[in-house]
């Protein structure tokens, strides 16, 4: 039976299939992608920067300088590919595993490290770990409880529509998030109001120790969009060109008033959930090895070399350039002073009410007393 006007939305092939531009070894599966050389090289460079920065954040956590880090390794292509489809005025609602997306939006390594190390220049003033963002880049810092940001992205998109702004919002979330109420409510509202939003699900197969099959009995995550009247597209999340291609289509669709899209980027978390996790407790090495072969940087590098856009030497130079630049930034940021204690009582309200003024006095007096008693709180 034909359901009127629903053909596009009910496109099961795209929700159940897997869109790819490159195969696992970086060979084009259906002809050369027609994208500018610079864009292809940018994609690769952003992924390199995200990979190096991720390694540093892990190291800094092990040194006790960062409270907690959620490693990105293996998921760079989804974050970079999807956000490259956005315009500067568009808004991003990330989760906590998208360093590449932050870099694409223009955030610098220094700003990210200031945040992670909660230096005096931390733009979020020491509020929480593993979250990043900045108003000047239209990146709304994520809440740590997963999926909370999904309806926010829908609301911002709807607001833009109401206010007549031609902008698009994009939000990232993991496979575990799709089990939460926020996902349901967000997709439902987006479908009903045709909100200009792009949902990017980073399906990395594991929500801490819980595998995808314990998260949903649906054959794919993309197919969930259909029941909300939101087209679902499943894409190889380790193929940066493929992610970019479907994201660009979804962004254009949203901007032209046709409504939301759910993209399922199939990827894999090569590291632990966070630095507090031990994945050897719940998954085998074989599986990790298999996905290491499919990781996104290797694939893109091979493609760029085969297309003649990059030589082995240039590749090495690119890596060492960014390794050097990021290391210099780390050294610089490590020397910055910490945030003063008073920040913990700021930004609760626009103006502090009387109770917080009283408590500021208590805080200062307690700091004086600790000094007097010679007590150092570890």
């Amino acid at each position, binding site marked *: 039976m034909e359901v009127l006007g629903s053909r596009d939305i009910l496109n099961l092939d795209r929700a159940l299939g897997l869109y790819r531009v490159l195969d696992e070894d970086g060979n084009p599966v259906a002809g050369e992608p027609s994208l500018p050389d610079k864009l292809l090289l940018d994609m690769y460079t952003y992924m390199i920067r995200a990979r190096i920065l991720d390694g540093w954040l892990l190291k800094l956590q092990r040194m006790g300088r960062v409270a907690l880090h959620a490693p990105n390794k293996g998921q760079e292509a989804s974050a970079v590919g999807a956000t490259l489809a956005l315009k500067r005025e568009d808004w991003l609602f990330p989760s906590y595993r998208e360093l590449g997306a932050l870099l694409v939006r223009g955030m610098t390594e220094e700003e990210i490290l200031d945040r992670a190390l909660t230096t005096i220049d931390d733009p979020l003033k020491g*509020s929480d770990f593993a979250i990043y963002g900045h108003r000047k880049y239209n990146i709304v810092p994520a809440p740590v409880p997963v999926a909370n940001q999904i309806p926010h992205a829908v609301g911002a998109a709807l607001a833009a529509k109401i206010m007549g702004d031609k902008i698009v919002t994009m939000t990232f979330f993991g496979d575990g998030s799709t089990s939460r109420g926020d996902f349901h409510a967000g997709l439902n509202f987006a479908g009903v109001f045709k909100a200009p939003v792009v949902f990017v699900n980073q399906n990395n197969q594991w929500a801490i120790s*819980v595998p995808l099959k*314990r998260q949903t009995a649906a054959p794919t995550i993309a197919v969930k969009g259909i029941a909300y009247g939101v087209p679902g597209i499943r894409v190889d999340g380790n193929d940066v060109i493929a992610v970019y291609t479907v994201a660009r289509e979804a962004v254009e669709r949203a901007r032209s008033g046709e409504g939301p899209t759910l993209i399922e980027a199939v990827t894999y978390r090569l590291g632990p959930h966070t630095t*507090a996790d031990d994945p050897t*407790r719940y998954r085998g090495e074989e599986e990790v090895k298999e996905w290491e072969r499919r990781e996104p940087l290797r694939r893109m590098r091979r493609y760029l070399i085969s297309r003649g856009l990059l030589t082995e030497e240039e590749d090495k130079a690119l890596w060492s350039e960014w390794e050097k630049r990021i290391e210099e930034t780390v050294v610089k940021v490590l020397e910055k002073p910490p945030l003063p204690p008073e920040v913990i009582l700021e930004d609760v309200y626009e103006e502090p009410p009387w109770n917080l003024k009283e408590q500021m006095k208590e805080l200062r007096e*307690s*700091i004086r007393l600790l000094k007097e008693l010679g007590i150092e709180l570890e």
Partner: protein
Amino acid sequence: MPVMNMVQALNQALREEMARDPRVVVLGEDVGRRGGVFLVTEGLIDEFGEMRVIDTPLSEMGIIGVAIGMALYGLRPVAEIQFIDFVYEAFDQIVSNMAKIRYRTGGMYSVPMVLRSPCCGGIRGGMHHSQSPEAYFMHTAGLITVMPSTPYDAKGLLKASIRSNDPVIFLEPKSIYRTIKEEVPDRDYTVPLGKARLVREGNDVTIVTWGAMVYQSLEAAKLVEEKHGWSVEVIDLRTLFPYDKDAIIESLEKTERLVIVHEAPKTAGPGAEIAAYIAENHIELLRGPIARVTGFDTPFPLVHEKLYMPNIARIYMALKKVMQY
């Protein structure tokens, strides 16, 4: 007697209750293969299988809603919320159902379940891994709220909670999960709900506290004894509602001074209830004002958390205030 930390004691409580009563099941995120992110449920899946130790999809609303249904049907579910900071998605289920089903059905149905969850600060957990939201639960009629401070109490209180016919919110202060060790009997025992524990005897001032703040209070008690010769009594409330008012009154009859110490923020916090109850009913016992030492009225900060939480200096300031009134 074996020496255990709180994680081991809780694990043993669950193991013993599951062996004793086939109606006891455990469900939550990562509680199976992973053994819970703090390993409280470690090994249970091997012993009791996947039907009784259930790794759930990631939804607190689902975990609590489903546990309520299980309890209605006759099981005794112990539902884990990975961090209490994530419980809010399940708030409708807790407030509208878990707490109200007995009342709504005129006592026909009850929800004998335990919601257990790591709580509180002190591990650099930031604002969504450090909260002390006990006041929300104390304020919700129909719930029992518990927070142990020692491995012995943790085991005995969890067993009593599982056997309770009313729903229990069981909050576990994660900063002392592994730092406090003591002898814990390898056998079945319970610690009664609703009873406080006298931690330290004293004559001049009473500190009422719970969770990890018991240890901060003890440090401050030692400090003022050395510095001023003041003798501080410390009471660990253990059950936050229904709290042991008699234990507080009995202590105040002796000391006539009250300081309340908790990690939760001050305004409309759990200390406000205790202070109001004493002021309403037993003001004649007091020589001067009640003092509260609490987390500040802000979200829990990632930076400077030891200054945000009650610490030895802030408890000292409060003791000084009530002693020198």
